[in-house]
């Protein structure tokens, strides 16, 4: 029998593996994942369901696609106690999530943020909010609007007034 540490998202079949209970999660687009309860309870939302005995049937994970949910499960697997040998190795692995180099990375981080928020996964939320903050740093207003596709709904007068109200922030 494989140990708890080797079970992953592709496990299927019984709802238990050895003495480890498996939970069934279903993404918004219908993909089904079986995940060890000990791993999935890194989500505060799922832990609450388990504690309240509400995790006996398939758990729908709304607003999260199968692609994103697979990434979330990969995150859980890596953050399971004992999954990686040391903190440095974990940080190195996490670094693929904590930088946003282009708009494709950006969209992945958005998806993960929504999932981390819905499932309440503090470690993933921390990593993704940090990635977005890093992407904001050092950008001018126009650069931010371009990178994040933000369309201003202020007219020139309103924007000037806001800049004036917060003058020091804009002159440094």
């Amino acid at each position, binding site marked *: 029998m494989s140990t708890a540490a080797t079970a992953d998202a592709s496990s299927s079949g019984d709802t238990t593996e050895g003495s480890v209970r498996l939970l069934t999660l279903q993404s918004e687009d219908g993909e089904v994942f079986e995940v060890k309860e000990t791993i999935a309870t890194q989500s505060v939302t799922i832990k609450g369901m388990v504690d309240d005995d509400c995790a006996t049937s398939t758990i729908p994970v709304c607003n999260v696609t199968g692609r994103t949910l697979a990434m979330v499960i990969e995150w859980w697997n890596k953050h399971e106690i004992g999954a990686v040998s040391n903190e440095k190795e974990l940080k190195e692995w996490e670094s693929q999530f904590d930088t946003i180099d282009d708009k494709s990375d950006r969209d992945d981080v958005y998806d993960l943020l929504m999932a981390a928020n819905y499932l309440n996964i503090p470690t993933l939320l921390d990593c993704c909010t940090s990635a977005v903050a890093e992407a904001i740093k050092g950008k001018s207003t126009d650069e*931010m609007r371009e990178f994040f596709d933000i369309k201003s*709904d202020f007219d020139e007068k309103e924007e000037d007034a806001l800049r004036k109200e917060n003058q020091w922030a804009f002159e440094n």
Partner: protein
Amino acid sequence: MDFERLGECIRGRDIISRLPDDILVQILSRLETKDAVKTCVLSSRWKNLWTFLYNLHFDDYDYKLGRSRNFENFVDRVLSLCQCKYIQDFRLSCSVIDDDELSHVIPWLCFAVERNVRKLNI
């Protein structure tokens, strides 16, 4: 707030503006306060988000030239509009060379204490 205009702004590809307030505030709280406040001009969705910051980091880079009145006004303004009751991290870096400057700094520190600051760095 003009909801029609706001709706127009958050449809389309502007996904970041559709994130919930608490996530956006978490993102902004990871920035220097001046960078967080600068996002107020992006669109009306961002106009007041910075008033919910729970980390406040003020750094007067040009302090060697003497503290600028604008820096003082900025800190005063941010603190007066701050809606967060529990400040987690308050960092302040500026000169205090005379009683006048000190008289400004003391209320800032009192503010941090009143707002239950957990980490204070001066």
